[in-house]
């Protein structure tokens, strides 16, 4: 099982611009499937997929599940809590068990960076990284790219990622994907939440959110994990909102119309003002819709589907 993307999707860092464009292009016809009365095509009929979530993530898991079901795959969900497959078992043993069950694909969310590669190196099935620690969350990066592309060409667009970049796999996948498609990328946040040497990845750093807003075409607001206060990275939620919050007042001073994105789930009034999240520049719900299409594209391509047949695959149920 090895097509244009190889066996697995572990991250965007090691994909080419062409591979990323291929996924986005393949997602286009799948967008429409979700708009139909019968939201199902037979492209992955007979394929078995395990959704293996070592960390709770309702939204990513549901998005994958919809994508799998709309492609007619057989799916099993395994959550870390309440499963003997996972509890107290090493990842090696989990991998061996999965291998023994002869499944076609594994979608895995795991708290340790590199866990997806660890699994992919040990099983024949395709592995899709649904978020590994602070490393990557490639399908989130892809759906963010698709959402930007719906509104403007990515090349030349200035995108600033605002918030806790240090702990964010979403930020890393966005940075790689955007750079490969020719965007200009910046990050902004308290220095305690920006990783050392981030500039070396090819991004600018803004210390003040006002400067980021003045510069950017797109602001991607990251969720602030509330435990960052206890671990001493920032003093308080109130202070964070005051200094780094993406607020209506700040956006009103922007020299141009901005697209506002957020990977969810949002902390309203912490990293983002509700009026911004619900306002005319927010494309946050488009992101959610595109998430299903992008995941359908990834599943389809990894399963060996021909990109040029995606249109036909979509049409199959029409006939």
């Amino acid at each position, binding site marked *: 099982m090895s097509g244009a993307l190889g066996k697995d999707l572990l991250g965007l*860092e090691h994909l080419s611009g062409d591979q990323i464009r291929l996924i986005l292009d393949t997602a286009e016809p799948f967008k429409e499937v979700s708009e139909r009365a019968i939201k199902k095509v037979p492209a992955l009929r007979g394929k078995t997929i395990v959704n293996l979530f070592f960390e709770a993530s309702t939204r990513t898991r549901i998005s994958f599940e919809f994508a799998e079901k709309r492609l007619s795959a057989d799916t099993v969900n395994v959550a870390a809590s309440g499963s003997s497959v996972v509890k107290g078992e*090493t*990842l*090696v043993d989990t991998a061996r068990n999965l291998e023994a069950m002869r499944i076609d694909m594994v979608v895995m969310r*795991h*708290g*340790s*960076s*590199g*866990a997806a*590669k*660890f699994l992919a190196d040990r099983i024949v099935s395709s592995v899709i990284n649904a978020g*590994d*620690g*602070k*490393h*990557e969350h490639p399908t989130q990066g892809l759906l963010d790219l698709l959402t930007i592309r719906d509104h403007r060409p990515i090349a030349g667009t200035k995108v600033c990622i605002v918030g806790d970049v240090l702990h964010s*796999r979403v930020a*890393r996948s966005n940075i790689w994907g955007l750079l490969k498609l020719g965007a200009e990328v910046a990050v902004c946040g308290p220095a305690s939440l920006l*990783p*050392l*040497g*981030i500039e*070396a*990845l090819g991004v600018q750093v803004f210390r003040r959110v006002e400067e980021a807003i003045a510069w950017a075409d797109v602001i991607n607001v990251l969720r602030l994990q509330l435990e960052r206060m206890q671990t001493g990275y920032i003093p308080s939620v109130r202070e964070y909102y005051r200094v780094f919050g993406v607020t209506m007042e700040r956006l009103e001073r922007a020299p141009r119309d901005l697209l506002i994105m957020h990977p969810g789930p949002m902390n309203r009034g912490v990293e983002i003002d509700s009026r911004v999240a619900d306002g005319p520049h927010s494309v946050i719900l488009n992101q959610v819709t595109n998430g299903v299409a992008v995941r359908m594209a990834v599943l389809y391509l990894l399963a060996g589907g021909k990109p040029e047949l995606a249109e036909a695959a979509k049409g199959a149920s029409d006939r």
Partner: protein
Amino acid sequence: MKPILLRGARVLDPANGRDEVADLLLEGGLVKGIGRALGTPDGATVLEGKGLVAAPGFVDLHAHLREPGREDVETIATGARAAAAGGFSAVCAMPNTDPVTDNQAAVGFIVRQAGLAGFARVYPIGAVSVGQKGEQLAEFGELVAAGAVAVSDDGRPVATAHLMRTALEYARTFDIPVIDHCEDVTLSHGGAMHEGVTSTRLGLKGIPRSSEDVIVARDIALAALTGGHVHFAHVSTAGAVALIREAKTRGLRVTAEVTPHHFTLTDAACEGYDTNAKMNPPLREAGDLAALRGALADGTIDCIATDHAPHHYDAKEAEFDNAPFGVVGLETALGLALTELVEPGTLTLAQLVDRMAARPAAIAHLPGGALRPGGPADVVVFDPGQEWTVDPSRFFSKSRNTPFAGRRLRGAVRWTIVGGKVVHTAGDRPDAPDRSGR
């Protein structure tokens, strides 16, 4: 025990300024003579040394032999055997065992086990604090009386500045070094590798250089205050090198070691989440590596130590975050030092022998480290030009966790002799029957 005559090797003994082709006669556990055309005593074993280097057996100030507690990954016997295979005639055992080596009975146990094994000499290092808990000083007097040659809370730093101060003061009575693993755990907490661009890309929590540097600076200030002897374990940063260099110019009693992995590899080895590249302190960057090599050359760093840290293969077969720190090192140290330091001209062969034998022996006041008539017959004989490929399945250590598997190295041990007995011969296999050194 038969006398041994090693004939025609290049005898390299920097402690006595000797570098000449000569014969070496070992008898009664001691060096009997060094010179040309020494007679062959009756019944002597003759070893042909032509083209080989004979040097004082290497001394490793830093090894984790895991016994008692983790005999599944290493024992004193297998560790001492691995040491012999690496050309070490003496190895110092760190006290972070289970139970901790913090009392005279525990020290005595290690001495006894090493005596039974009979390969490299094993010198116990006692704990600085009871249970290595960082609270109450261990009984240095009893530890030393039982055979300890230094104290350390290695595995972790000496917990507080006050404890380090009192340890340095108290150790003066026994003239032993306090070996510190320098890490500010509030800075390194949860870190899995060096903090830099690679950790940023891999999404792994970083351990900043400053985690090491601030404790090195603390300990230097305390060495100045107390007049005690601090030995810095496994120095990894350019900043620590600069601090130690400056402390030495002030005449403070500070010494330092570097490991082969820290002078050979950078954090790039962690790419692909290779858990065999996970160690503490972590592999740093090219600038640090250059500083470490320079410091070994100019004497700022006194010696090479392995920080041999065996782990079960299951433990390293895990997510990077969850894998333990550490690599085995006894059997690759000489090859790495010759390939990485002598071949590019950073050290001369004589300097290398100095950094692996004379200096470490002097730091812990151990016998050996030199070849002089009447001194212990602890000798390593190696072929500096012989190439070989690291094959962990041939290690004498019980563990295989090395980032150097498959690496071509130049320089291989031919014989290791301890107390006048050959305890390792090139070609010995770990799986061969009767490999007792007795």
